[in-house]
Structure formats: structure tokens, C-alpha cells
């Protein structure tokens, strides 16, 4: 079994912080198919439509029949560890700083043989394993073999923790603790073992339900934070920015209606100010310090979470201006991801369907419970994915959008 992770010793503040490094990041366009699936937490390989052969590594034509009719298919990942080795010397800076590093050759039950990172609990070869596609510090798919059956403290494995964004012993900022979702996120991070959760709240004179309960949690520190106030964001970043390992931006302004049912631009502007410019302000002030701490030991800066909306993919006209603000935030979050990737800080974009809150009062179920969404976010951090579509409705929209975006646009606007 894995030795449980011990709380890292307090950092000596006068020591140099190690610069982040990343494993090799170059992939062919076809190989990015593996990354695209891993970003959602799925292990996919190409399969030939003509002869049924499963392919590895990703390629243009079937290795068996040369057909070009290959499609990406989710894999169970079960197989056998055939041989293994431990890396002690590497020219790659990322691995050089992390040796010894365990690697093995796995023959999948569906055919291909591949090289995978090996979890410490995988017994010596031959042994049954399950291969996952993780995202590594470069944001690229990396194959990781774990024991077929779960072992105690599995997540604490040294190599696996380099792939995930586990909140355990990390410090997190949740930007809006006033909402039910914000409070559920704070509690979920605490339950996941976060050392400290800063909980932001705007307009402090409007006391919110749940304030006293949050205040009682020893790991929680309530901080006035209004993402529309550049001065406030700048000052909070100056105060705590160098210690935030996980930033969860759930600050949101949400009102119903599109263009025809509401006069003026003020509500739409408020949505943009919180949902889009709020993210921009946070990113300008908090991202630099997080980037500098991407390689800061066991409790490095590791993730930035954006609570977006499935409406970012296709406009939901009854909440039309809100959808537009989330689409803007979605686009900006892609920019942030590109800027954070060299530092190994993952940007997790979350695209929920309607949340069961007061602004979705008039929508029929299914609606996502705030607590369920918070659990999904924490789980996604533990898993290390970068795109999360939590709940049935988001999954359904995603499937329809991937199949035919134009059809989805037409379906939801009638």
C-alpha cells in the first residue's frame, strides 16, 4: 500500500522556490486525440472500422489493414504488466528532478502494447493493471497504470500526485462563498483534506445564510472579495496570492432573459463584469504567483477552476446574455490555460447545466444540486481532468454539441 502522504513540512521562506518544469509536450495532431479524451478523464484509443484492430500509438492508418477509417473509442484499459524498469537518470529536466521514476510495458487486453507510468502499488511484473489516460504537467495525455483493484491511499502515490490536482494539504481560494455552490465548494475542499480555504464574499453588509456555519470551520478564512473591484482583487492577491495552490472562481452574476425581454444593457454589463472581467482581474493578479509556484514541492500551485456553464457552448436564449458572458469567460479561460500550461498549473473548466438556485427557479428539473456540483469539482481535481461536464443535462448537451453544434443551436432556440 502507498505510504499516506504526510503534511509537508512548513516551507522555509528564505529558500529558493524551484522553477516549474514540464515533461516533453510535443504531440502530433492525431496524438492530441488521446489528450482530448484525457482532458475529460477518458482513455480513448483509435479502433479500425474495417478490421476492428485497436491502435497504439495514434496513427493515420490501421496498422493491420491500412484502412484510414479509424475512430476514437473509450477503453477499459485493463491489461497485464509485462515488464518494468525504474528510471534513475534522465536528460529531461522534469524527470531528472523526480527520479527514481517507475515505468512499465503493458499489454492491453484489447491488443496494443504500450509504455506507462507505474503506480507504486503495482506489483512486480507480471501483474494485472488498469491503464488510465491522465494529463501530465505539460497538459498532455500520459498513460498511467494502477493496480486493477484499488489500494489504500492510492492517490498519495508520488508519481500519480504529479498528474493530479489533489486538494489534500493544499490551500485553496473560493471566490464567492455567499452562494450555495460556493459554500458547498468550501466544504468539499475541506473534506478533501485542504489545509486552508479562503472563502471570498462580496458586499459584506448583506449577511448570507450559512455565514456562521462557514466561520466555525477551522480550515476556513472568510475574506472580503468582490471580483468587480480591481483594487480589492489586487490587494487580496498581494496578501495571499503567493500561497494559493488552487483557485476556484465561482463568482457569478446570473439573470434571466435574452435581448427582447429586457430593456437596456445594465444587467448584461453586470454579467460581463463579474463573469468575464472578474475572471480577467483574478487572472491578472493571482496567476503570476501561481505560475511561479508550479513546481513548489508536494504542495505546489496546481489548479485554477472556472465554473462556467454549458450555455457557454451554445446560447440558451431564455438566459441569453448570461450565456454570452459565459461564452466570453470560456474563451478567456482557454487563454488562461495556454498561459498556465508552461508552469504546470491546470485550468479546469466546468460546464454545468442549470444549477438548482434561485436564478433558475422557473426552469424545470433536472437541475444540478450545488453539493453534487461541488463534489464533482473536487473529484475532477483529484482525477486531474481539465474539462468537466457535470450532471446529466451537461452530458446530454455535450453529446449533442459534439455531434452537431448547428443542430443544438436550432434545438434549444425553438
Amino acid at each position, binding site marked *: 500500500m502507498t505510504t499516506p502522504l504526510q503534511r509537508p513540512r512548513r516551507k522555509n521562506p528564505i529558500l529558493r522556490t524551484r522553477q516549474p518544469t514540464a515533461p516533453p509536450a510535443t504531440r502530433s495532431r492525431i496524438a492530441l486525440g488521446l489528450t482530448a479524451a484525457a482532458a475529460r478523464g477518458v482513455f480513448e484509443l483509435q479502433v479500425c472500422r474495417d478490421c476492428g484492430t485497436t491502435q497504439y500509438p495514434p496513427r493515420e492508418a490501421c496498422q493491420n489493414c491500412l484502412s484510414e477509417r479509424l475512430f476514437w473509442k473509450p477503453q477499459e484499459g485493463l491489461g497485464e504488466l509485462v515488464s518494468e524498469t525504474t528510471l534513475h537518470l534522465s536528460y529531461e529536466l522534469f524527470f531528472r528532478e523526480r527520479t527514481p521514476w517507475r515505468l512499465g510495458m503493458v499489454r492491453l487486453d484489447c491488443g496494443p502494447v504500450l509504455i506507462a507510468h507505474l503506480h507504486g502499488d503495482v506489483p512486480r511484473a507480471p501483474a494485472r493493471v488498469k491503464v488510465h489516460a491522465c494529463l501530465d504537467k505539460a497538459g498532455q495525455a500520459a498513460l498511467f497504470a494502477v493496480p486493477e483493484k484499488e489500494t489504500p491511499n492510492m492517490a498519495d502515490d508520488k508519481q500519480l500526485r504529479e498528474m493530479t490536482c489533489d486538494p489534500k494539504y493544499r490551500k485553496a481560494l473560493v471566490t464567492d462563498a455567499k452562494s450555495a455552490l460556493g459554500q458547498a465548494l468550501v466544504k468539499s475542499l475541506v473534506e478533501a483534506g485542504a489545509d486552508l480555504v479562503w472563502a471570498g464574499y462580496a458586499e459584506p*453588509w448583506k*449577511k448570507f445564510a450559512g455565514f456562521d456555519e462557514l466561520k466555525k470551520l477551522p480550515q476556513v478564512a472568510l475574506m472580503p472579495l468582490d471580483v*468587480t473591484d*480591481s483594487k*480589492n482583487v489586487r490587494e487580496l492577491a498581494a496578501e495571499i496570492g503567493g500561497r494559493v495552490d488552487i483557485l476556484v472562481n465561482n463568482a457569478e452574476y446570473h439573470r434571466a432573459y435574452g435581448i427582447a425581454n429586457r430593456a437596456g444593457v*445594465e444587467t448584461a454589463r453586470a454579467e460581463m463584469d463579474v463573469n468575464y472581467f472578474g475572471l480577467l482581474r483574478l487572472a491578472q493578479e493571482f496567476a503570476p504567483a501561481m505560475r511561479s509556484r508550479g513546481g513548489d514541492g508536494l504542495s505546489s500551485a496546481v489548479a485554477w477552476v472556472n465554473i462556467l456553464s454549458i450555455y457557454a457552448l451554445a446560447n440558451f436564449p431564455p438566459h441569453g446574455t448570461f450565456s454570452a458572458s459565459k461564452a466570453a469567460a470560456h474563451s478567456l479561460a482557454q487563454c488562461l490555460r495556454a498561459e498556465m500550461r508552461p508552469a504546470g498549473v491546470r485550468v479546469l473548466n466546468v460546464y454545468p447545466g442549470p444549477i438548482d438556485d434561485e436564478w433558475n427557479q422557473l426552469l424545470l428539473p433536472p437541475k444540478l444540486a450545488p453539493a453534487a456540483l461541488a463534489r464533482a469539482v473536487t473529484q475532477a481535481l483529484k482525477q486531474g481532468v481539465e474539462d468537466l461536464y457535470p450532471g446529466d443535462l451537461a452530458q446530454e448537451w455535450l453529446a449533442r454539441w459534439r455531434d452537431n453544434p448547428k443542430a443544438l443551436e436550432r434545438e434549444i432556440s425553438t
Partner: protein
Amino acid sequence: MKVLTELASALAASEIRVVDLTHTLAPEFPQITLPPELGQAWPFRVEEVSRYDERGPAWYWNNFSCGEHTGTHFDAPIHWVSGKDLPNNSVDTIQPERFVGPAFVIDCSKEAAADADFLLKKEHIVAWEKKHGRVAPRSWVLMRTDWSKKWRDPVAFQNYDEEGQHTPGPDIDAVKFLVEERDILGFGTETIGTDAGQAYHLRPPYPCHYYMHGAGRYGLQCLTNLDQLPPTGAMVVAAPLKILQGSGSPLRVLALMESR
């Protein structure tokens, strides 16, 4: 112009003191709060344009944003539905002489300290006049509550509980008395509105807005330093920004008073 020459001499000799009745426009300063489904006034926000840097090498400047009713601000009659059809009812059309007027300061600080929902009634004003003299026409009546001293603590300044806001203000009979029998220029407070926090429950709701603006009078709110003014004898200069059809504006409110 003997008077102005004398004023200049008095200012130069510090015989006239200028008191700033204005809060600093800052993002932390609380703004008026309405139910979240209604339209909202902007709080004060500031974004840096450049600060002797690549965005402008030798100069520093900001863009700011706020509502017409943010911070220490002026209310024009057009702000309320009761004043919507009056002539010269917006900040750009009010005659400029109306921006200067004597101030009568009614000290309600003890009452407000004892009861956050304190309502200033006609009888209080009548009693005050027995002591300090009759409120002159075309003058500002300023309700001193020392509420402005809570400005560092936005929670105390706003003073919300489950039933809403609890801040002092004028009662209906006081407002009608000041408008109809004293012909005042306007009413000023230290709180976030000219009406009390619970004035929604009065009839009509928000009587100071309703009657003052309905009669073409003005409002000043979020004033500070009223404790430095004498009950009578100060002169207030309160000129809002000249916004086209503006319903109000943040402004610098100054009071001139004799130093002695």
C-alpha cells in the same frame, strides 16, 4: 461687491472655515442595495489607465465608474416619480443659485444612537426652532446623526438584518412641514438615503423622496462632518455634475462657517 471682498479677506484670514461634508469616493464605500432582480446602481470603481509606465510613460490617470447615486451625492426632483414632470427638475437644468444655501443642522445624534430606526418628527423640528430660531426659506435642513462615523465598517453603516435596513431618517409629518411651511431647498442626511432604512413601510413609501422631489426640492445623502457645523449660520455649496437629464450626481459638498 463688498460682500465678496469681505469673504475673500475672511477666507485669507482663516475667519471663515471650509468644512468638507464629503466622503471619499472609494470602492469599499457601500452602495445602495435594492432587491437583486431590480436594476442596480453601480458602486464606485476605478481602473488605472497608466502610471508612468508603458501605457503612458510620463503620466498617471484613471477611469472611474459609478452611478448617479454613489457616495456623497445629490438627488434631483426627476429622481422620483412624483417630480418627473416638474420644470428644471434635473441636475443640468436646476438654476445654479440653488446650489448655494444656508444650512440648518438638527442634531439627532443621541436619538439615532439610541434607536437606529429613529424618525425625525415635526415636533422635534418645532422644539429645535424654539432653541435656534426658525428655519429660513430656501435653505438646507441637514439631519445630523453621526451615522457617517460608521463609514469604516460597511456592515454597521448599512445596518441590515432579516427585516432589511435600520437607519434613521425623517418622518412624513416632518417632511411635509419642511416643504409646505418652511419652503426649504432640500434635506440632507448622513445615511445612504434621505429616507429612513425602514421607510418602505411608511405611507407613502420613502416620504422624503416622494414629497421633497414632488415639490421640486433636493436631497443630499452620505454627508459627513455634520458634527463640525453650527446649528445655524453655515453656508452650503453643493453643485452636482452637469449631467444631461441627470437624476443626481456624486459631488463635493462644502460648508462655509465662521471660525469663531
